[in-house]
């Protein structure tokens, strides 16, 4: 990441000279002399953080210019401890220069590699520039950039064109170091287009505030698009959340053990627990399942994985970026108790050519096509289709004497997007996205078997419109209409839901001051639904086991209603200084199912304790997060007395840059939950649903990350946490069944050259909790024993640990690229327990693994 800076208007031109190194950061070099150090053995200090001097008002009025030579003493940490005036200039220049120089920060001088104190001379020049007329545009902004190739090497003589509102502004050729610069720019929206022979044309939009100096690095990709995603690295941009963990497509597609699946890679981030096998759940910071929604371009995805986690419903090739917010996220998002995942589908390429991709692996086959739409100038499309072929190998595995495959397990998904830029300031996309999973088998070997069938199908049409209405105003609008059909049936359980959801979100951002923004938005969900089915009666989370569901009298429902959940929000972002950013917001949600309003005030703040490199940022947040009760709870409670579940999230952390590529993030969190839905006896002893359960989750997360460069990416993530619930007021709190105190992931991927890449991932996770059975009680109704519960969630399975390795090889030909990978899952064939199995009368037990044995997953991929 390259840091950005803003200059204040009409501060005199700064002239800086580094004595020993002679490295000039401005236009005038000056004396170079280091009186204290032996230059033959010393690396000079290097300025990494510059501070502006205030132009003395009296001197400015008289249009005086001056140069002040300072002697600076820099300690071994790079801080300026002394700034003596060697050559004074008077008229207030000396004091101004001294004050500014004391805020400088350096990479310290080194002797034989070790940081040492040093003393250097500076010449601080004040150059007067006329005050612009009142109607003159704001002080110039600038873009300083660097263009690199996919190996990270500078691209020489690349053509960089800058335009605004359809008009060319300037054009540059990159220098030998790949750098270019556009100075004296008015604030506003710009389009940056870069071309270089042998590389795909690059096109991006940038927005410049007054006095903003944007430093950006652009990577141009070769025609093979998969490896090097266009990653625009901006200067410091405000984060609206305390912790956002963006992952680039390269990282997402190369994480070992995920077969290149982007959303499965999320499970390697801090705070994300290992879900039970085949559950397909996303469990964040000790919260319950289904409390971290996943959005694709702002639209909610009801199911993110095919068949409980085989792969995600949106292929990696269609994604640009996945942002994961483990907590304390913006008021833009709601109806989520834990975190948020916001995936961004990628924009089409605008190089005027057609591209295609075909991939085959153990699970599925997929194809992607992309290019301009004939007859529609300015329009491009990207379309993808994927179908599993697990039916080919899973069917024989499942089919047996007592099992009939009525419909083999199959999934498919598809995406078709078309986009255009109606104007320089706007972007429009329309798309269709859908997925379908289904299977039907009959298992006659037990009373609880019978027909087991599942349908999880959805499709939707959505649009996205973005417009930078002016330099201060921008607008986002997303709308979608989707149909969702979920059906699950096993023996006496049936749930069949059909919903037609209209989701609309919009946000207007108003930058009314250089240091402040206001955002207003709405987030509307209207979904007529019908749900029918029957489920066994659930006596509640603290009740003893009640035996097989097949003999539990079913509770039946057949209801049609409308999810109507509108929300509005406002957010104020303030940067009172260049170090500080505070985002406060409030969100108002209405839930028709409960007839209640929820108000969610939220506050986050970031403070750059140390600016520049190596930067240190403190961050923290606090806020309320609500989530309406689940459909089943609403339907079964019938009296609509339930309220939304509430989580008061608090977090505090620090981000520390260690090297240019290595950064460390440590964050503590403390969540207080209440209004959790439970089922317990009322005063008559009748079991009722209510919101009386509470909980507490606290812990710390650590992430040591090597940011992706041309050779390597990787990270170490570790979470230490505890998650407790009190299901019935007055009862002692218990560990939540998804509590996983320790989660460690170490992964990395190294480019070996010649198209080879090797990656490995190791995971260690505390074992899942379970409730032991202390014996069996024979139920004549079920003709079987049922567990006599011991203390609930009092035992823990053995820890989970697993190593996955991945090898990629890519061959680049003139017209296309061919790739292959081998994902070796569970490389040392560890058998990790997933649950405890008991014999028929609960007098013997053994652990059972649901995870796969060593599995080599081979994939082939061709693209042009």
């Amino acid at each position, binding site marked *: 990441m390259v840091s950005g800076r803003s200059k204040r208007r009409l501060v005199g031109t700064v002239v800086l000279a580094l004595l020993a190194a002679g490295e000039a950061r401005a236009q005038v070099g000056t004396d170079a002399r280091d009186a204290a150090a032996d230059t033959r053995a010393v690396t000079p200090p290097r300025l990494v953080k510059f501070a502006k001097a205030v132009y003395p008002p009296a001197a400015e009025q008289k249009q005086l210019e001056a140069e002040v030579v300072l002697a600076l003493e820099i300690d071994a940490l790079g801080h300026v401890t002394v700034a003596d005036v060697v050559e004074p200039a008077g008229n207030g220049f000396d004091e101004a220069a001294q004050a500014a120089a004391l805020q400088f920060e350096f990479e310290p001088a080194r002797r034989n590699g070790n940081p040492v104190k040093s003393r250097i001379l500076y010449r601080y020049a004040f150059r007067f520039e006329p005050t612009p007329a009142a109607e003159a545009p704001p002080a110039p902004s600038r873009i300083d950039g660097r263009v690199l190739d996919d190996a990270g090497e500078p691209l020489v003589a690349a053509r960089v064109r800058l335009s605004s509102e359809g008009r060319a502004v300037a054009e540059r050729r990159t220098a030998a170091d790949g750098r270019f610069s556009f100075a004296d720019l008015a604030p506003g929206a710009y389009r940056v287009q870069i071309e270089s022979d042998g590389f795909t044309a690059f096109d991006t939009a940038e927005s410049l505030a007054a006095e903003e100096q944007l430093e950006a690095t652009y990577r141009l990709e070769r025609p093979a698009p998969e490896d090097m995603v266009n990653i625009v690295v901006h200067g410091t941009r405000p984060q609206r959340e305390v912790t956002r963990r963006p992952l680039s497509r390269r990282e997402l597609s190369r994480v070992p053990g995920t077969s290149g699946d982007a959303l499965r890679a999320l499970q390697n981030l801090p705070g994300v627990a290992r879900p039970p096998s*085949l559950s397909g759940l996303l469990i964040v910071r000790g919260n319950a399942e*289904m409390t971290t929604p996943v959005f694709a371009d702002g639209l909610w995805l009801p199911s993110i994985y095919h068949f409980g986690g085989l792969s995600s419903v949106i292929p990696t090739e269609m994604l640009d970026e996945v942002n994961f917010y483990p907590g304390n996220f913006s008021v833009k998002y709601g109806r989520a108790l834990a975190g948020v995942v916001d995936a961004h589908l990628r924009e089409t390429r605008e190089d005027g050519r057609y591209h295609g991709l075909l991939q085959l692996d153990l699970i599925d086959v997929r194809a992607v096509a992309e290019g301009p739409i004939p007859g529609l100038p300015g329009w491009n499309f990207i379309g993808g289709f994927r179908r599993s072929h697990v039916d080919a190998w899973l069917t024989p*595995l499942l089919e047996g004497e007592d*099992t009939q495959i009525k419909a083999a397990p199959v999934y498919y998904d598809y995406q078709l997007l078309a986009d255009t830029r109606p104007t320089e300031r706007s972007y429009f996309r329309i798309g269709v996205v859908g997925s379908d999973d289904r299977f039907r088998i009959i*298992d*006659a*070997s*037990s*009373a*609880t*078997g*019978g*027909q*087991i*069938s*599942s349908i999880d199908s959805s499709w939707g049409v959505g649009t996205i419109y973005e417009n930078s209405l002016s330099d201060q105003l921008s607008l986002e609008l997303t709308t979608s209409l989707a149909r969702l059909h979920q059906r699950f049936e*096993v*023996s*006496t359980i*049936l*749930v069949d839901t059909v919903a037609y959801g209209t989701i609309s979100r919009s946000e207007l951002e108003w930058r009314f001051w250089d240091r402040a923004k206001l955002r207003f938005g709405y987030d509307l969900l209207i979904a007529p639904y019908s749900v029918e089915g*029957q*489920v066994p*009666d*659930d*006596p509640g989370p603290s*009740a*003893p086991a*009640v035996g097989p569901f*097949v*003999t539990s*009298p*079913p*509770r*039946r*429902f057949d209801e049609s209603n409308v999810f109507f959940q509108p929300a509005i929000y406002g957010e104020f972002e303030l940067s009172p200084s260049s170090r500080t950013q505070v985002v406060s917001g409030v969100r108002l949600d209405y839930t028709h199912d409960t007839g209640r309003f929820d108000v969610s005030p939220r506050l986050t703040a970031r403070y750059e304790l140390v600016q520049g490199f190596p930067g240190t940022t403190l961050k923290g947040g606090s806020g309320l997060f609500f989530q309406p009760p*689940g*459909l089943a709870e609403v*339907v079964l409670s*019938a009296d609509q007395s339930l309220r939304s579940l509430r989580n008061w999230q608090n977090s505090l952390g620090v981000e520390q840059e260690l090297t240019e590529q290595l950064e460390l993030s440590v964050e503590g969190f403390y969540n207080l939950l209440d209004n959790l839905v439970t089922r317990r*006896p009322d005063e*008559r*002893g*009748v*079991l009722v649903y209510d919101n009386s359960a509470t909980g507490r989750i606290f812990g710390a997360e650590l992430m040591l990350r090597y940011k992706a460069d041309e050779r390597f990416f990787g990270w170490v993530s570790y979470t230490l946490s505890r998650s407790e619930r009190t299901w019935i007021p007055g009862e002692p709190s218990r560990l939540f069944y998804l509590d996983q105190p320790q989660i460690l992931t170490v992964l990395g991927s190294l480019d070996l050259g010649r198209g080879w890449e090797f990656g490995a991932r190791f995971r260690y996770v505390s074992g899942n909790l379970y409730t032991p059975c202390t*014996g069996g*009680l*024979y*139920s*004549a*109704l079920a*003709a079987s024993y049922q567990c*006599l519960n011991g203390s609930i969630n009092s035992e823990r399975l053995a820890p989970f640990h697993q190593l996955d390795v991945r090898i990629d090889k890519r061959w680049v030909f003139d017209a296309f690229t061919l790739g292959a990978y081998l994902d070796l899952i569970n490389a040392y064939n560890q058998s990790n327990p*997933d649950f405890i*199995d008991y*014999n028929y*009368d609960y007098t013997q037990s*053994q652990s*059972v693994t*649901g995870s796969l044995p060593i599995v080599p997953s081979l994939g082939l991929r061709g693209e042009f």
Partner: protein
Amino acid sequence: MQRASELGALALLCGSLAGCGEGFDSPSKVQGLRAFAVRAEPASGVPGQSATLELLRGDRQEPDGAAEREVEVAWLGGCHAPPSRQFFDCYPLLVEIAKRLEPRVLDTPEARFPSGIFGSGDRFQIEIPEDVLERSPRLETDSVHFAPSFTFFAVCAGELVPRPELTDRVPLGCVSKSTGEPVSKDDFVIGFSTLYTLEGATNENPELMGLRFDGGLVTEASCELDADCEPLDGAPELEMACAPSSRCAPVVPACAEGCPGHQVLPLIAPESAERLPNEDHTEVVWANFFANAGEFGKEAQLVNDRASGWVSEFASKWKPPKRPGTARIWVTVNDQRGGAAWSTFDVIVR
């Protein structure tokens, strides 16, 4: 509803991938004292009327000529329509009953309690209160309003003793008559029966018309000599002999490695799968197979599925033991609302 998905995942996982229950002895293998079923007559309660519960139990194989073990059976009842409709709400009542039992439970006179509260033996009569349906909470989402009556029982190859200090389970224990120490798990079974009283609906016990053993219709003919036993209808080639229980029994060779086994097929009337109240579907019906020698390939077989209907094939194969003797085979049929039926026969292994 997420839990439903989890159940499905678990079902798939258990049924197909990992194999739950593998590594344990099959539940069909009877190696100690076991309860197999409780049949109520009538199979659903009628307010204000009584119902008779009958316990089917079994025990390990004894050497030919040896008497079966003496067993004590006690019943604790009177728990009708607890507010939660769950059996564990009955524990406080059971504790109160246990406090009034004699130190040797079966010494307690049944007259100490009102009818349907305490009893002994394989049969027990309970009284359904007139207002049982009114007592039960009425929930909109119930497919039919119902009231459960829970009756608990203990089967002990020793001496039953009260354990009123056990407040979270059935407060009865079983000790050795000779040592007074608790008996092993194979000598003590504790369980409960659920009888539903349904509003505007009834349930019938499944109709088990008979059993076929290797195609032959098993009879309950009594005998004194082998010559008293006729060949089975449908399997004239099957040798028959008189078992120590004085019932005619098929004779099969002991099973060496790789023997094919003998098919046991319950003959169940399709009408046993009754239509569920307020639903087009029929109830789940299944069969369980038990033997105190040898082993069944499948201990349970679905007979009727709610969604896919009648299962065409629900026999199970029994593999005789390696050692000669007389094996007892129990086949029970259950429905999802508490109905039960059973049949038992012996097989002589030579």
